């Protein structure tokens, strides 16, 4: 494969925005609120006979009492309902080729289903039951915990799977954003079925949730069905504790995570980012495209193309409600760890020492606009966009101003963006690798702490 850039960018919180030369616009959608507070979004798209249904709740792992609680609560919603046990629930969906997933991140919990439009009524009933009347069966929960713990152990086999957890822990120390979304073996061990019921009881409430139905649907009919199925969903979500802005690190730190059989070093270097509603969000994405958001970006060009040190190097901003993170990330063979880290930092410093010229900026602007429409091509992608709009409180105005915002960026403004938003001091670094071989080298990059991979 030439590059893993595509998948990497897809996983980033890339600017949902649009309007491409006036030709590409967000398809019309409708937004309603039921009397119980539930928000309903519908968006019709009839290209293929498929429907996507998303139920999103504005509560995630930052509200965990025990790490892993939100994640396990979401997973437990697929273990059967009060009407159907797990096997019957799964059989009904899988027999018609429907897929269903449930997951939580820091600030939301999401249940998503994809299915043929002819099965819409049946699937919506099952989703309703999963959300409102889950089985919460003790035996199934115990088995889920066993399976889940095994996947946590397997996660430690891959540096790429764990490094972001360590980075968040280092960057957001003391803040709820340092929450370990997946939990640890010990925290999961301490979670009981009651913890899941508590989380569900507190946050899976209509005033805290949105139902999104997109694809080959009749919006009018959906409205009636949702009214019939969800109107009796009652209660209000608990008051959420006020979340402060994360503080800025005051020391340059390096966390070395030892994996004794590592054959390469995987690292992230970064600092505070921006919140999802930052007015410069789009401009920041364009500047980051130049630094590390595409194949010809500075980081990939220096570390991969010129030096041959890695298969890929990149940078990105991950944005949340009250703040976020910025990080550069790559991997290289154990022997070239220091060289690659130095080159990443040296390249990063070009943002200030060299700045961005007009031609490079023009290229990045064309790139983000040209690559934009395929991000919102399917009903599933559109459903996820609407969910993000609900969780972070933005609307189509943000979407429709995308190209205007991209177009308005000039080199002066880009310079301001760099100075305001790209962290320059007190960078935080995580390296996962063979500690014996690289400890001395990585210690030169900041105050060192070492842990074992787990």
């Amino acid at each position, binding site marked *: *494969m*030439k590059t893993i*850039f*595509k*998948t990497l960018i897809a996983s980033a919180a890339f600017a949902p925005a649009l309007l*491409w030369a006036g030709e*590409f616009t967000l398809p019309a959608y409708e937004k309603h609120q039921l009397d119980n507070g539930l928000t309903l979004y519908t968006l019709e798209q009839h*290209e*293929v*006979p*498929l429907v996507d249904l998303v139920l999103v709740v504005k509560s995630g792992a930052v509200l965990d009492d025990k790490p892993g609680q939100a994640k396990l609560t979401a997973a437990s919603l697929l273990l059967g309902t009060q009407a159907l046990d*797990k096997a019957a629930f*799964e059989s009904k969906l*899988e*027999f018609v*080729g429907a897929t269903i997933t449930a997951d939580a991140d820091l600030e939301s919990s999401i249940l998503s289903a*994809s299915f*043929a439009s002819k099965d819409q009524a049946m699937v919506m009933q099952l989703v309703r039951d999963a959300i409102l009347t889950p089985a919460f069966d003790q035996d199934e929960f115990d*088995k889920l915990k*066993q*399976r889940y713990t*095994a*996947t946590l*152990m*397997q996660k430690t*086999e*891959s*540096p*790429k799977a764990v490094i972001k957890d360590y980075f968040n822990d280092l960057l957001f120390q003391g803040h709820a954003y340092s929450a370990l979304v997946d939990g640890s073996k010990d925290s999961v061990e301490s979670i009981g079925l009651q913890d899941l019921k508590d989380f569900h009881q507190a946050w899976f409430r209509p005033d805290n949730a949105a139902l999104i139905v997109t694809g080959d649907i009749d919006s009018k009919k959906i409205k009636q069905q949702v009214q019939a199925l969800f109107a009796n969903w009652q209660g209000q979500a608990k008051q959420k504790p006020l979340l402060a802005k994360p503080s800025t690190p005051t020391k340059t730190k390096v966390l070395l995570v030892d994996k*004794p*059989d*590592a*054959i390469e070093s*995987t690292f992230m270097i970064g600092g505070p980012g921006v919140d999802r509603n930052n007015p410069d969000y789009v401009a920041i994405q364009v500047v980051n495209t130049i630094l590390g958001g*595409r*194949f*010809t970006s500075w980081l990939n060009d220096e570390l*991969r*193309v*010129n030096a*041959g*040190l*890695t*298969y890929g190097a990149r940078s990105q901003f991950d944005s949340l409600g009250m703040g976020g993170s910025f990080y550069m990330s790559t*991997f*290289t*063979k154990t022997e070239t760890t220091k060289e690659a880290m130095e080159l990443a930092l040296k390249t990063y410093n070009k943002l200030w020492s060299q700045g961005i010229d007009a031609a490079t900026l*023009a*290229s990045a602007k*064309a*790139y983000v*606009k*040209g*690559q934009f*429409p*395929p991000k919102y*091509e*399917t*009903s599933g992608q559109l459903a996820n966009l609407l969910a993000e709009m609900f969780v972070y409180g933005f609307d189509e105005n943000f979407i429709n101003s995308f190209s205007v915002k991209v177009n308005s960026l000039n080199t002066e403004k880009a310079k301001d963006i760099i100075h305001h938003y790209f962290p320059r001091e007190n960078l935080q670094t995580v390296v996962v690798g063979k500690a014996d071989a690289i400890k001395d080298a990585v210690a030169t990059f900041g105050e060192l702490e070492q842990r074992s*991979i787990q």
Partner: protein
Amino acid sequence: MKSTKFGALLFFIALCNPLGAMAMKDEVQSFQLKNGMKFLVLEDRSIPNANAYLFWRVGSRNEYPGITGLSHFFEHMMFNGAKKYGPKEFDRVMEAAGGSNNAYTNENLTVYTDWFPAEQLDLMFELEADRIAHLAIDPQMVESERGVVMSERSTGLENSNFRAIWEEVKGAAFRAHPYSWSVIGHESDIANWSLQDLVDYHKTYYAPNNAVVVVAGDVEFEQVKALATKHFGPIPAQQQPREIHTVEPEQKGERRVYLHKASVSSPNIMMAFHVPSASHPDYYALSMLADILATGKTSRLQQTLVFDKELASNIFAYFPESIDPNLFYLYAVAAPNVSAQTLEQGIIEELQKIKQEGVAQEELVKIKNRKLVDFYREMATINGKANTIGTYEMYFGDYRALFNAPQAFDKVTADDIKRVATTYLRKANRTVGVLAAQEDSNENDL
């Protein structure tokens, strides 16, 4: 492994609805240039973008010891400079025009993918034609690219257990056919192939008569034809590449491999059975057997081994399309404190059940339903469409095979499933690989 994530690797083609398929049948248009380069075009105005998927008939099956991994390495070199657009220019020019690209290599094919605003088609073809006709192989670029590919190889082995054991299983299952080595190749070959190897490879395989190009998106057929003729028409055809005539001798006894990796938390097992190529009539029954075994939580292996007996924490089947006879894989990760042996026995018992008792009609209907919905999922994007059309053209000899697939799947009976299970899922025909943390050495042995 040369594709993206494993999930995307699981064969996706397969649809059971003649209506859905027929609608698209009329929409695909094709033409062939005088030099043999073939184009398939699908007009689709859902977004103002288009793509070009260039399928080349060259993969690791075209290699031999000493140049293993060269197909994949070559894929990288195609981005490192040609006549009009020098080193780095291909990507720079494409990205500045709002386009992006990627590429992948597997055992059978090398595929280049360009995604771009539809009005940039002219430029995309110009960029592609430049590197097909006039690739410049710069010795310095070759050296730095060796480092990139070494890193790609090691990051795969570091982060993917599947990849680590896959190499070993392939090596044991094939002793004659080039499917024996991994697509990324042996480390020593990556370090040592020569400039001349690269020059020869380009001349032999990157000839217009060895390619099929699929274009899908907001384009017009006549415009594609005119631009293709302008840019690719002048590139001369070459002699057909040498046929791959090696046939893997029949396996007549089980083969086993073991791989030690200290950080593995529980054993991983890969079981691989020799099966025929995609063009064989049994392809359809085998494809459905793979789904019956491991697609979805209600599939046999997941239901029994993950949820009921709790022997595995994860299990899947992998049955890739293939030009030559290849392997049907089962992959399982043991649950904590379950031995590789117990897990293996659990899998064997489930396979035995299908061989003895067959499958229920309802299981067949479930799989056919799933294949239909999956087909629509592919058709939801211009990329899914281009990839599916090209895949059928390359593996089944004609993109129109896509439209016969519904009947082919529909014709598969419960007896067919039992028959292919009995024919291919035999001990003597399998290779078993175990990856585990325990060292393969002890005081009672050596």
